[in-house]
């Protein structure tokens, strides 16, 4: 079982590395969306500082969601997903491996680039640190929840946008507490502690249930 998990993980990472752009594009998308706002909103320092956390989180949400669309799609189209269903491994384990790979390739880079973005929006150093932490705990939740939607919309025309319709509402709690933690940290960094407890709880819950739900959804979609 462990070997199967690792094998899928390695496979997905290799695939992404073959097309090296894959990793970079999510990142660039995130950066571009965040950088677009000042064009639309104006570039006053106070305004941007207030907007910062919200914009970063919304952009992270969108980036994660966009990349999710392809989470199972490629495997579905070339028939490898069918084959994954027919192996002797528990499907939810394989799903977890795929989600982990996905997060390593799209979520983690976003966390790492956050300081740069924070600077664009004149955030303080504590705020930037809190933002990185919040993203670190929050983005895996996004990937896990998103996997359910990706599995459900597999192979449907216009799937990408349907997917966003289905899962963006489910992302709201993460968005609220993720952005909240950063905003509150401007008072004192410790203020954001309860936010992190909640984000952590979301992570644990989604780790437990999302792979099962995604596996069930995949079985349905491939019927």
């Amino acid at each position, binding site marked *: 079982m462990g070997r199967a998990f690792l094998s899928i993980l390695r496979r997905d990472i290799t*695939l992404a590395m073959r097309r090296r752009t894959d990793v970079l594009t999510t990142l660039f998308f995130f950066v571009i969306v965040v950088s677009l706002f000042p064009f639309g909103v104006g570039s006053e320092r106070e305004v941007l500082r207030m907007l910062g956390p919200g914009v970063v989180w919304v952009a992270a949400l969108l980036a994660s969601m966009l990349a999710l669309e392809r989470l199972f799609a490629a495997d579905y189209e070339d028939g490898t997903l069918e084959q994954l269903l027919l192996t002797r491994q528990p499907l939810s384990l394989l799903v977890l491996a795929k989600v982990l790979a996905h997060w390593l390739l799209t979520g983690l880079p976003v966390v790492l680039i956050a300081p740069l973005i924070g600077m664009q929006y004149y955030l303080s150093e504590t705020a930037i640190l809190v933002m990185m932490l919040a993203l670190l705990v929050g983005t895996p939740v996004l990937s896990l929840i998103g996997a359910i939607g990706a599995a459900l919309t597999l192979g449907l025309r216009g799937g990408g946008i349907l997917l966003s319709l289905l899962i963006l509402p489910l992302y709201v709690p993460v968005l609220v507490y993720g952005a909240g933690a950063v905003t509150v940290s401007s008072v004192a960094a410790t203020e954001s502690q309860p936010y992190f407890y909640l984000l952590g709880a979301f992570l644990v819950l989604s780790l437990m249930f999302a792979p099962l739900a995604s596996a069930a959804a995949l079985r349905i979609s491939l019927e």
Partner: protein
Amino acid sequence: MLQVVDLACRRGDRRLFSALGFELGPGVLLHVRGRNGSGKTTLLRALCGLLLPEEGEIRWHGEDIRQLGDEYHRDILYFGHLNGIKADLTGLENLRIAATLDGDRVATEDLWRALERMGLMGFEDLPTRMLSQGQKKRVALARLVLSSATLWILDEPFTALDKDAVALLQTLIANHVDAGGLAILTTHQEVPLTSGRIERLDLGTEH
């Protein structure tokens, strides 16, 4: 070993077949025949458990395959209309992953040998995206060389293959069946099948 009881399948709003029943023992090759759209692919997918039949039951060693779940998957190998290989991985990598997921620990040498056997010498290291239609199919079929599954379910495995490859695949199937395996296949091509016991199943006669 494989027992099909009173099976009925429906796609869309058409019922493709009903009250289908047969039993296969070891060393049998079942050739499912029928014209385009008669339900061959549907039957094969149902036999894999990928598709829930409308009625009836499929039993493996006397147990319903839905109860067996992943245990049943250990014993079968399905080859569908899609090749099930990743275009960005090389033939070797594709084969290694397939073997790992099947739970077999295979040495790299065996992988090379399997690909060589399929006539892919010199192409093992290319991303399969760069292969021709028939070469892709050969990569996918290399799984058969390594497989330890008892039941092979092959949906039109001969398309896009040239003469050499067809002959090779025939030998593979024959060896498998002679060794007590079971094979179920469909094909429209005139391919002489020469294995242990050959049975034929004709679909779509009621249509």
